[in-house]
């Protein structure tokens, strides 16, 4: 396409706006927006999005299916209040928990296994004899009397109707009475470490940088054409934005244009020397409390620029200085 001149753009815009549509819309008082018919490009995007959703769903399903060391699948059993089994000696475990039910034993062992794993991870003592519902004993010491721990696992239907947290301090008797902990449930998760071991020296494979957007063509900087006659353009120009808030009283009763002129740090005027040409016209938005004056101009380089907003009578409205940095 040939370079766009002002006259050519005028002509094209006129043709464009005057072109009649093939059919006119019909006013429908109960109009509802019709579903958008997607183009082939949008169809491809939908396919990509659907693929992404499918992959995400599969990943989540695999994660919960196989889990990892720290993510033992949790089984929620109907009764979970009695997380401390009765010991064989008849000594009470210490917590006033509701009666056991057969299903709770599985949950107990699984919960216990999880808690043991967490304790191992945190470096706590391995010889814990407390129930999962009780706070772990600090090394060499008794448990704090006021320690309260939440019951675990969660029971949606407590048999007693009242949820009672375990009171660890009162259960110290269980230790002195030869309490035998239930057998530790073996973890049901793979024992491979969840972390990836670094290869030893000499085994590191070079990582090839991946192109994050392989489908885009490589960036080509625009070729600058030599300026046509009568038209001087500085390649790689920066656009400076100059704004000012004007008091509404300054424009009260004024119907003309607001202009802006820009000077560089050496006092040189940018743009047309006719300060009232269209090139210097600024955009003014009248808001409720002030008027927003806005002007954009190409500047030859980064740096400080002074700007002045004025009326067509030459009346000063605002002035200031801006550093154009991009």
């Amino acid at each position, binding site marked *: 396409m040939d370079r766009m001149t002002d006259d050519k753009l005028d002509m094209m815009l006129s043709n*464009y*706006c005057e072109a009649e549509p093939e059919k006119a819309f019909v006013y429908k008082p109960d*109009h509802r927006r019709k579903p958008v018919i997607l183009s082939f490009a949008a169809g491809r995007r939908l396919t990509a999005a659907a693929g992404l959703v499918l992959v995400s769903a599969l990943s989540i399903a695999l994660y919960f299916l196989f889990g990892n060391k720290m993510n033992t699948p949790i089984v929620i059993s109907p009764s979970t209040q009695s997380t401390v089994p009765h010991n064989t000696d008849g000594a009470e475990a210490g917590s006033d928990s509701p009666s056991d039910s057969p299903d709770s034993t599985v949950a107990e062992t699984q919960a216990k296994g999880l808690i043991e794993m967490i304790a191992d991870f945190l470096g706590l003592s391995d010889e814990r004899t407390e129930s999962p519902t009780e706070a772990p004993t600090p090394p060499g010491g008794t448990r704090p009397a006021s320690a309260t721990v939440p019951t675990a696992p969660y029971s949606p239907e407590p048999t007693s109707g009242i949820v009672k947290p375990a009171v660890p301090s009162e259960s110290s008797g269980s230790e002195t009475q030869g309490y035998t902990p239930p057998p530790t449930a073996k973890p049901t998760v793979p024992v491979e470490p969840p972390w990836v071991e670094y290869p030893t020296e000499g085994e590191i494979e070079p990582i090839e940088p991946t192109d994050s957007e392989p489908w885009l063509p490589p960036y080509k900087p625009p070729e600058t054409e030599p300026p046509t006659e009568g038209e001087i353009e500085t390649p790689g120009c920066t656009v400076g934005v100059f704004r000012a808030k004007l008091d509404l009283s300054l424009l009260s009763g004024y119907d003309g*244009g607001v202009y802006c002129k820009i000077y560089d740090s050496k006092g040189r005027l940018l743009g047309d020397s006719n300060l009232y040409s*269209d090139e210097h016209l600024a*955009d003014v938005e*009248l808001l409720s409390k002030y008027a927003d004056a806005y002007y954009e101009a190409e500047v030859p380089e980064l740096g400080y620029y002074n700007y002045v907003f004025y009326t067509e009578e030459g009346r000063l409205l605002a002035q200031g200085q801006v550093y154009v940095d991009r």
Partner: protein
Amino acid sequence: MTDFEKYVALYSRDLTRFCMKLCASEHDAEDLFQDTWARALDRIEQYDETRSFKSWLFAICANLFKNSGKSKYNSARHIFATDEEKERFMRSIPDEEKDIDAYIALHTAISELPKKHRVVVILFYFREFSLREISGMLEIPEGTVKSRLNTAKKLLRRRLNDGSND
């Protein structure tokens, strides 16, 4: 036929043309068209008969478009939702104009203009309203109309010239 129905019959074609130029897609254009008539019907008592109904109607349309959110009437991700829409656009270009691609590029460039600049350009090149009338319709100073027109043309020229360099 009521007066309002007469107006609908008389100005629907021009309003369709205006909405089609403002919006990138036919769906958005039809939404704008319907909303404009609905708003005009709601405010028909406010219409001042000394004023041209067409400029009052177009003012409603232009302000609905300009003051709407970024995505309203601007939802199309692609300029032409269907191939039929693209062919209809190409048939609307005058026969003497051979460079159809240039008009498609212009249509794309206009759709990328900020709304407040787009509405001024379309109103001006509709060739039916003076700068003063546009200033009254959009309730902005005349100088601002000129400035936005200037800026819009600058942006269009830059966009079209960058496109021709590709």
